[in-house]
């Protein structure tokens, strides 16, 4: 049997204009229903209509410093933003700002909603993770279990009971999202013994069922961890060791093919605008931007988000693309 071939093509690009140095875009996310893409740039949110392919509106947040990440509420009605001004904002798309969440004592780096949309988790350079009550806009819990900036948090949307975090201290931790207790720490014995010391974590992302965790570290290595067993089950290496190393936190995500018999795909971006896709099952490289498309002009791919067969990539220079992924069964020809 021939495996269907994987194709990734640019469907469209979203125009962004960078006028100030503080205007850098940092995060682009599909709405849960797939109708829109929200991009944060500086202190503004840009809403892009995926169907009509137009910029729908530009919303000015109340942040005084740039936003580092945004997150859609599961009901598509709100966008939460985490900013360098130590605060978070929850904004309703129809009614405007709902809450300004104050409590972190350093820039807020990452955030995510739980599956029901009633809790918001945020992580910050103050080394803590905070849990917020979305309805009342109040702080519920502070989880302090890292010794460096916590740069990424994720919660499995289908099972909101476990929260994962990745930190510059090189640790990946799993928490009980209701009690805040640490359930497990994922580290490699070898990571500690490595010559250069700990490798900071750049991003963590749960698999659909929450049993596995996709992790990218600043050495540019992408791994899939078994959360329950606590060991690595897949390692993905791209480029050479020097060119792979990251200065910026470059994006990763899972892409789930609509044909469920096919293995999910790992999509990863790198420092000089390179994009790679692997089959998560057999680690086969399915796509590499090297010598393919001339996208992102060598600028770091800061954010990757997948939904259905679409991939949205955003680089620091303001280039933002929507890609279409598809599998084509090709009949082998004898040429």
């Amino acid at each position, binding site marked *: 049997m021939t495996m269907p071939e994987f194709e990734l093509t640019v469907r469209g690009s979203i125009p962004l204009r960078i006028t100030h140095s503080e205007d850098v875009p940092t995060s682009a996310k599909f709405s849960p229903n797939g109708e829109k893409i929200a991009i944060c740039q500086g202190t503004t949110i840009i809403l892009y209509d995926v169907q009509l392919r137009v910029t729908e509106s530009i919303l*000015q947040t109340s942040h005084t410093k740039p936003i580092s990440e945004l997150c859609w509420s599961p009901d598509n009605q709100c966008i939460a933003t985490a900013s360098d001004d130590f605060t978070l904002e929850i904004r309703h798309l129809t*009614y*405007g700002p709902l809450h300004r969440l104050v409590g972190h004592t350093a820039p807020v780096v990452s955030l995510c909603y739980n599956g029901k949309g009633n809790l918001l988790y945020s992580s910050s350079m103050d080394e803590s993770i905070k849990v917020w009550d979305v309805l009342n806009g109040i702080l519920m819990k502070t989880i302090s279990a890292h010794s460096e900036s916590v740069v990424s948090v994720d919660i499995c949307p289908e099972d909101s009971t476990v929260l994962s975090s990745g930190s510059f201290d090189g640790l990946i931790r799993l928490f009980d999202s209701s009690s805040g207790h640490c359930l497990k720490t994922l580290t490699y014995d070898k990571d500690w013994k490595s010559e250069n010391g700990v490798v900071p974590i750049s991003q963590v992302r749960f698999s659909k069922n929450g049993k596995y965790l996709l992790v990218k570290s600043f050495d540019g290595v992408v791994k899939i961890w078994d959360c329950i067993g606590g060991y690595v089950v897949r390692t993905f290496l791209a480029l050479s060791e020097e060119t792979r190393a990251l200065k910026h936190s470059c994006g990763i995500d899972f892409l789930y093919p609509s044909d469920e018999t096919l293995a999910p795909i790992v999509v990863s971006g790198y420092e000089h605008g390179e994009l790679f896709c692997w089959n998560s099952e057999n680690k086969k490289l399915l796509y590499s931007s090297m010598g393919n498309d001339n996208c992102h002009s060598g600028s770091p791919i800061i954010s990757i988000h997948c939904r259905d067969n679409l991939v949205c990539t955003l680089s620091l220079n303001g280039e933002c693309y929507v890609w279409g992924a598809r599998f084509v069964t090709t009949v082998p020809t004898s040429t």
Partner: protein
Amino acid sequence: MQARLSSLPVWCPPYSKTKKDPITGEDVYCICKKQDTGELMVGCDGCDDWFHFSCMRIPIKYQKLVASFYCPYCQAGITGMDKSEAEEKTVEDETGDAIKVRKTLWKKKCRLEDCYEPCTERSKYCSRQHGKEFLQEVLSKLDISGLNVGESVDKEAFVKTLIQQNDRDDFQSFIRAGQSEFIDKDVPKSLDNQLYESLIANDRKVNELINQQSIIETGTLPKAKERVELLEKYIDWISQVNIKFNEDQNSSGTTDENSSSKIDKGGKKSKKKKGLKTKPKKRICGYISNFTELPSSVDKFVEEYELHKDDGLTTLQSVCIKTRCIKHSEWSSMLLDRYLQEVELAERHQERIQLLLQTRKRQLHIQYYEKVTKKQS
């Protein structure tokens, strides 16, 4: 609530009780335990010791911004606990409850970047002068090159006309700009008619809310009020029936009061009458499932009741005529509560829609103004 204890910062040495230099016998201060050399210090509100700005890692330029200062030991709860609690600063936390904090608090700084003076009351600036400077700076940064306003227009004039367009009035209306009432006012359509049509006039949410508003105003609310009236009318009717009963009973009661109990013999009937005597007021339950139309007139009803009262009927013209009806007890007050609640909830709902409409419009107005100003040539 007790102030939360926190640990000392890494740069702060452990607490020492030393107040005098063991060699010279001079007073020593701060965490560095040195004598006063004239270097700028700040007094702790918790323990009355003095601390160097440099030792506290507070830049000297912030000296006028300290509102209240607590040293690391007081913040960690090591010292200053014996002070009466009333002296401690209270601050409102997120839930609005007052909590006591032993924490250094700061005054708001002037908006001008290089100025470290505290703001004057009800102002964002330390002085009028700095307010002017700040705005001049903002104006200088304003980029109107992309706006289709003609080349000769200078920035200052452009801003001025923009303000005047928004409001025909004067300086007072300028002051109001940025306050909520300003943004709640209808926007001037003329700035961009097309944008107004697409953004505000055709906004789905606004129209939906206006629609809901009119449904309540013309449908729900008057209907609920009408039902309250009808029910009150019926309750009135029932109480008239009950009054009539009592009139009849009383009149008959007074005439043959002495004989009545003797004449009636046995059975339920005599029990009933006895009950009536001790409790002179006779009341029928009066429950009816549909009260929109009144049953026959009071007199007729009572007449009919008198005719049938010995037939063991429980309802007459669909009205429950049991005198002690447990099942329907309190039905009238309950129904009245229900309909009054409907009126109240409808009124509250109306207020809520009003608020939503205002909030939505405010968002649209902000977008409108932003788009107008950003609009490219």
